[in-house]
């Protein structure tokens, strides 16, 4: 097993003693099979126990360890050091979110937005439990399955320049999850979600940069979901104006 000394420049911020973040360098003996998260764990365990960052599963499932690695939003548990360009590796908290402490960002804005789009199945009529489960065919599942793979890692928000420039934008993950529920055959909540989604801060703030989909570690393609919702919202508008009796 080969080992390489690699310097990590990590953005540190202590809200109690500092007014702005600063980079701190750590020299880490990295193993060939290490990901960036392994190096962070090494720093925390061996070099500096005060370093703060979120992580949990170490297998790209929990979505906790998203951070900027050499300026690119990545899951640190999926970012193999051997795949990164040689030299110093720069690690920063996800762009476009306030820094809580070191690599930990404030998630409140995203949580509020996620809640606003009602990301759960809203059936037409609640059924009693004794009536059994809502059934769904594989074809119906296939309609939304891709968009259900989101792990809320927020790499898409860090990649989206629109969210950076206009923080009111609902953003890629929340909109992709909206689409996921709108496409679900068991759900009848689209009209409720449209009040948030078919607005300027909703799908219309997106200008299809496509960065969200490029960085998504789960191939959810939020940009595609948003464009599909734009088309559906446009169709709604025309139908409402051409066939006003449909409004009910």
């Amino acid at each position, binding site marked *: 097993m080969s080992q390489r000394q690699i310097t990590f420049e990590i953005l540190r*911020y202590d*809200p*109690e003693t500092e007014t*702005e*973040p600063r980079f701190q360098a750590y020299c880490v003996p990295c193993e060939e099979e290490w990901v960036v998260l392994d190096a962070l764990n090494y720093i925390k365990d061996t070099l500096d126990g005060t370093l703060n960052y979120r992580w949990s599963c170490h297998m790209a499932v929990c979505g906790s360890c998203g951070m900027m690695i050499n*300026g*690119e939003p990545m899951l640190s548990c999926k970012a193999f050091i051997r795949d990164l360009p040689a030299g110093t590796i720069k690690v920063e908290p996800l*762009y*476009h979110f*306030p*820094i*809580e402490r070191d690599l930990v960002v*404030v998630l409140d804005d995203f949580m509020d937005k996620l809640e606003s789009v009602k990301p759960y199945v809203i059936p037409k009529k609640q059924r009693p439990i004794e009536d059994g489960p809502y059934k769904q065919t*594989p*074809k119906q599942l*296939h309609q939304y399955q891709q968009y259900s793979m989101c792990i809320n890692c927020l790499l898409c928000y860090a*990649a989206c*320049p629109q969210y*950076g*420039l206009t923080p009111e934008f609902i953003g890629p993950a929340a909109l992709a999850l909206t689409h996921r529920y709108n496409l679900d055959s068991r759900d009848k909540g689209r009209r409720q979600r449209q009040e948030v989604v078919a607005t300027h801060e909703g799908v219309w703030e997106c*200008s*299809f*940069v*496509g*960065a969200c*989909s*490029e960085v998504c570690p789960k191939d959810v*393609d939020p*940009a*595609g979901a948003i*464009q*599909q919702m*734009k*088309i559906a919202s446009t169709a709604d508008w025309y139908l409402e104006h051409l066939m006003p009796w449909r409004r009910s």
Partner: protein
Amino acid sequence: MSRNPYVREVPRTTWYMRNNRYIRYMLREVSCVFIGLYAASLTVGLVRLAQGDNEWTHYLNGISSPTGILFSLLAFGFACYHSITWFNVTPRAMRIPKGDGFVPGPAIVSAHYIIWAVVSLVFLLMMGVL
């Protein structure tokens, strides 16, 4: 322990210089300026045509000058970049149901190229170029 989150401002005028992905996006957006200018030039051409032979000849001389040709080439390049980048993303905006799944992306992209080629061919035939 007190909370004092640090907000990093996004530079309002230089944000797109941060990576190549954003630069490619801005190129796609800027392409509309060149396409718009080309459309304006065509409109001026129509006006000159209505004004008479002399004005029309003057206009033709203008667009066939080295500057005119350079502008046309630039507009053509941007029009191609705009079209190609949009064609490539269409399958993500258009999910056409087929059987249990969807029409594959390459088929949708190919259809766009075929329609582009046919429309271009019709126009070239109408203009007597072919």
